[in-house]
């Protein structure tokens, strides 16, 4: 998929994403040098800060890929930066998969890739809703999976 087209489609969804981010407690930003990378910062009541990273390559033909980054070094990503949410459905297989439809890991997982979904299910505002829900799947046990 053409990168410029993906950027344009992401721009289409950006205002709605900003609107829903605020009540979800997420602070959104985009990488100036990589416009298909979106960051969503979330701070728990104990002040632990997390940064969800959405890699929107081939958006919206493909879902955003979800990862978490070191809040102080956004290029440093991986399972050590994910929050432990006790009641969240997580699979650890070749990376971490949030077992809720909407992110790339779910839709490319061997258990789910035969499922048919409309692509609206992975539009950015809805994916933010999923991540907001993920942060509410308490108790929160700390950083790292």
């Amino acid at each position: 998929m053409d990168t410029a087209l993906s950027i344009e489609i992401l721009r289409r969804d950006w205002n709605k994403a900003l609107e829903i981010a605020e009540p979800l407690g997420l602070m959104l930003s985009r990488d100036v040098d990589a416009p298909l990378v979106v960051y969503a910062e979330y701070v728990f009541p104990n002040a632990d800060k997390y940064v969800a990273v959405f890699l929107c390559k081939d958006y919206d033909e493909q879902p955003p890929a979800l990862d978490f980054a070191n809040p102080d070094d956004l290029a440093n990503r991986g399972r050590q930066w994910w929050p432990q949410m006790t009641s969240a459905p997580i699979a650890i297989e070749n990376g971490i998969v949030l077992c809720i439809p909407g992110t790339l890991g779910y839709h490319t997982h061997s258990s789910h890739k035969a499922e048919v979904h409309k692509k609206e299910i992975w539009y950015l505002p809805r994916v933010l809703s999923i991540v907001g829900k993920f942060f509410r799947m308490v108790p929160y046990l700390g950083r790292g999976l």
Partner: protein
Amino acid sequence: MSSPQNPNTISVKVIGQEGDSATVEVNIHQKLHHLLEVGLKALYNPPPSANEYELVFNGIALSDLEKTIEQAGIHNGNRVTIQPKDVSRG
């Protein structure tokens, strides 16, 4: 966002899980359950059952719907999202 004439009446922007939004007017002494119901009516036609949805404000689900809008700290011009209580799990 301008405040309605009655000082107890406020405008609240409700946002569905897909990012669609609507503005509703409510009295701060009404319960959160009322805000949830009018929000669902404003966003969806026909509105789904309020029992399957929750209000999320500042990243926190407002679980006690018997609280008033004022008690929940919702003010004129605030944004609240209405989210499904349960998500599809694979």
